[in-house]
């Protein structure tokens, strides 16, 4: 009962904190509206018109397939990038020589603009979902990797020695001492990875002519339908916000409830 109550309380606090987030979003909408009033409908359609265009799009039969395409590609790219990047990062974090070898490789990968990867991926995979996912993975892996390396490298070795003194083997030490610490570094990295995944997905779709929201954006641009273009942008942002605040943040909050305990009474969250 106590645990359930605490969980409900945490959920309630989380939902209540949504007001603050909504405030930020409405500020953006207000600035958008101001821009619309200053420059006119053709340059910047009003937020409400954009939402109406989005509602219109949502009514069309192809909409769900298009949105689902992009969402699945972005999530697949995110899953592969976060999984591989974190795994490699954890392995590298334990070995200073591995960090030294991999660091320049990462800088190299990060230094190549995503657009170049798209061209290469187009040659390798053709104009398909594979190109999009591959571009996302290449663009996003270094972020997850860096987060994992940082997490493992900054682990508390005195706690590891304690665990060893109590008879914990290497695997147990990793699970009970390193992983909880790692989480604090991985989640911010994963948030960035996720954002990158959605951005790169749309860009790759547009440039590779691979359908999805990117393809729809290209079509809207060709028709000079600014409201529709904006509607697609809003849709991608909404998907990103939904995954980040619907999945990543609640999971993190649940895993890191102990941090709240250290916040002095009366500090506003």
């Amino acid at each position, binding site marked *: 009962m106590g645990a359930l109550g605490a969980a409900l309380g945490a959920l309630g606090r989380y939902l209540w904190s949504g007001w603050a987030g909504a405030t930020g979003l409405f500020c953006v909408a207000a600035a958008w509206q101001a821009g619309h009033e200053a420059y006119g409908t053709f340059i910047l359609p009003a937020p409400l018109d954009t939402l109406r265009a989005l509602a219109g799009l949502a009514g069309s039969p192809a909409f769900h397939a298009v949105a689902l395409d992009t969402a699945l590609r972005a999530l697949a790219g995110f899953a592969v990038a976060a999984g591989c990047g974190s795994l490699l990062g954890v392995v590298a974090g334990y070995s200073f020589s591995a960090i030294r070898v991999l660091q320049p490789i990462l800088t190299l990968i990060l230094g190549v603009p995503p657009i170049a990867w798209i061209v290469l991926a187009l040659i390798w995979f053709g104009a398909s979902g594979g190109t999009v996912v591959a571009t996302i993975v290449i663009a996003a892996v270094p972020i997850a990797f860096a987060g994992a390396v940082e997490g493992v490298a900054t682990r508390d070795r*005195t706690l590891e*020695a304690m*665990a*060893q003194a*109590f008879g914990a083997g290497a695997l147990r030490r990793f699970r009970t001492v390193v992983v909880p610490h790692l989480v604090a570094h991985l989640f911010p990295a994963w948030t960035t990875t996720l954002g990158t995944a959605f951005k790169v997905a749309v860009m790759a779709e547009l440039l590779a002519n691979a359908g999805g929201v990117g393809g729809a954006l290209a079509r809207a641009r060709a028709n000079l339908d600014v409201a529709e273009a904006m509607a697609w942008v809003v849709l991608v942002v909404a998907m990103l916000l939904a995954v980040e605040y619907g999945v990543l943040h609640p999971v993190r909050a649940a895993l890191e409830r102990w941090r709240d305990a250290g916040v002095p009474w009366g500090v506003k969250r």
Partner: protein
Amino acid sequence: MRLAFKAVGHSFLGRTVLDGVSFTLAPAETVAIVGPSGCGKSTLLGIAAGLIEPLRGRVRREYARHAAVFQEPRLLPWRTARDNIAYGLELRGAGRRERHEVAARLARAVSLAAEDLDKYPVELSGGMRQRVAFARALAIDPEVVYFDEPFTALDVGLRRTLQDLVVDSARGRGFASLFVTHDLLEAVRIAHRVLVLAHRGGRIAGERAPPGLPGGRDERLVWETTERWRTEDALFAHVFDAEERDERRAA
């Protein structure tokens, strides 16, 4: 015999920290190791606890379970006091119910309130954290406990309370302990025997046994023994000097 060091030596990057260290630890015996800071006390304890592989000599252990209490509490910050106390049990595969039972029992033994068990380490005071760390060591029912200056960071009154707790638990549960400290008064209060590490060279300079048994010595005897050793016994001269230097630096 629980533990035996035979001519154990160790170096870090070519600098000798321990050399030819031999001693034994009998069942239910408390041996204190004193020496100035940087004389290799913690290395010695690390070797005994299996955290450091010595470069020379042999260590023989004749027991099934040991536990350790460190200078810092070293609690897992993401676990409640209860789960911290039960950590060693969990590593041994104990079930949830057993872990909670043992944690509750040991919390009482170290005078932790029941409601503190649900708190995270950040919510506990320094003394309570060290109590949790001690309870964690007792939880696995160890035959040997290694103490690495566990009470240095605590104030005098609390230190006394926890020293008594260690002495009582050692007598009640019958575990042997190796207790590293740079506080001679503490060593005299809790130990059967006191080993003195030399300031340089990492050797054992000598050994003394305070009169009486731990727990049976009154304050006056502890104080007088400490003073006598400090002022009259050449063995402790360098420990005392180093300590005085530390105090002067702290002041």
